C-alpha cells in the first residue's frame, strides 16, 4: 500500500505556519523560563518572520482563483 503524498497548495501559508511555529515555540520556551527574550531579539525575530513571509509571497505565483 503506497502512501499518498499531499500537495502544498499555498506555499505562503506553509512558510507562515512554519515561521510562526518556530516563533511560538520560542515564546513557549521563554514563558517556561528556558530562554530569556530581549526586546531587540523579539523585534528582530518578528521582522525576520515578516520578511520571510513577504519573500515567500513574492516568489509564489499568483493563486489561480478560477
Amino acid at each position, binding site marked *: 500500500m503506497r502512501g499518498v503524498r499531499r500537495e502544498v497548495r499555498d506555499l505562503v501559508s506553509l512558510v507562515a505556519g512554519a515561521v*510562526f511555529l518556530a516563533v511560538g515555540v520560542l515564546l513557549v520556551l521563554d514563558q517556561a523560563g528556558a530562554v530569556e527574550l530581549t526586546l531587540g531579539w523579539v523585534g528582530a525575530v*518578528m521582522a525576520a518572520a*515578516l520578511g520571510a513571509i513577504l519573500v515567500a509571497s513574492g516568489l509564489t505565483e499568483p493563486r489561480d482563483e478560477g
Partner: protein
Amino acid sequence: MNDETRTPDDQGAERPESQTGPTEEQSAAETGPTQQLPPAAAGTEERQASGGRPKRLLRSSSDRMIAGVAGGLARYFDVDPVIFRIAFGVSVFFGGLGILAYVALAIFVPTGDEGQAEKAAPYERQRWLGVAAGIALVLALIPAVGFGFWWGGGWGGGNWGLLWLAIPALVAVGAYAVLRDRRERGVAFSVGGVVAAVLLVIATLCGFCILAVGGAFVTATGHGMAVALAVVVVALLLIGAAFRGGARWLIVPAAALATGVGVAAAADLDWDGGIGDREYRPAAAAAIPADGYELGIGRLIVDLREIDWRRDQVINLDVDQGVGQMVIGVPSDVCVASETEATGGDLEVTGEQVEGTDIDLDQNVNATATPRLELHGELDFGQMVVVNDDTRDLEEAGGNRFHGDDPDQGAMRDAAAEACAE
C-alpha cells in the same frame, strides 16, 4: 479604458514567451483600444514600436486617473501603475510632497503614446518587487531595533522616526496587495476599490493592534504561556491549511498574538499596582511606603518637595511602573543619586536624558552629599522624569518640554551638580 479591466488570462505574466508571436501582435493591433496585449507580447511590440530608441518618460493618455502621471511612470518602469497611485495617495500624509511631485510631473512631462504597447504595462517585475520589498523591510527593521531609531525625536507628540514611516508604508503595501488580488480576480480598477482596499488594510491593522495589546495584557497578568500556545496552534492551523488551499488571513492573528506576548515577555511587563493616575505628596519621609510606589498603567506623580529635608537626611525611594509616565519632584538643593532603567521610552533625570530601548540612566550613584535621595526606578514602557525644581508644576512635566536646548534642563543639571558637590 485602463488595464485593470483585463481578465486573468490577459495578465500574461504567467504566460510563456513561446505563446507570443506575430499572430497575436497582429490580432492585438487589430482589436483596438478595448483589448489589451499580454505583457510579453507588449514588451516585444514596445521594442519594435520604439525602434530601439531609449524609452521616454511620457504621461499616459490612455491609462490615466487624473493627468496620466502614474500611468506614464508605470510604463516607464515596467510596473503596475497602482503602485504609483497608492504612493501618491499615501504621500498626502507627508506634507503633500508627492502631490507637489505629481503636479510638477503633470506640468513638465509631456503626454504621449509610444504605440499601442503603452496600454499593456508588463508585470514581470512585480514578483521581484515583492522579494525586494521583503528584504528591504527586514534590513530596515533589524537595525532599527536596538539603536533607538523608533524613538527618534522624542516622547509624547515628538517624531518617532521610522515608526511614522512604517505605518503609511504598511497601509500602502497592504492596499497594493489587496488591489493586485482584485485585479487577478478580474475586478475592474476604480477609486472606490482603492478606498475600500485602504479601509480594509486600516481595519486589519486595528484588529492587529487590538489582538497584540490583548495578548500583551494577558501576558502581563501572568498567563503568557496560554498566548504562546495559541500562537503554536494558529501556526499549526496555517500549516494544515496550506495543503487545503491556504488560509493566509490566519497570518494576522498569529503575528499579532506573537508580537503581543513577545513584547510583553521581553519587557517583563508587570501591571501590578492598578490602572489610572496616582499622585503622592508625602509630608514626611516616614510617610513613604517601605516598598515604594507602584503603578501598572497610567501616570504616577511622587512629589517629595513638601518634605522638610534635614541637612543630613537620606531618603530611599523605589518606584516601579508598567506603562505610562512617572514624574518625581525633589527640591533643587537635594542631591539625587539615581539608578533608573526602562525597557523602552525616555528617562529624564535632573536634566540628563536618554531614550530608546533597554535603556538605563545612573546619576551620582556614589555621591555622599546630603540631603540626598537614593532613587531606584524601573519602568517598562513610557517616560520617567525626575524634576529637581522647587516651582515647576509636576502635572505639566514631561512631554517634549525637556528636550533639546530647553533652558530648564541646564538649570536642573546645574542644581544637581551643586547639590551633589562634596
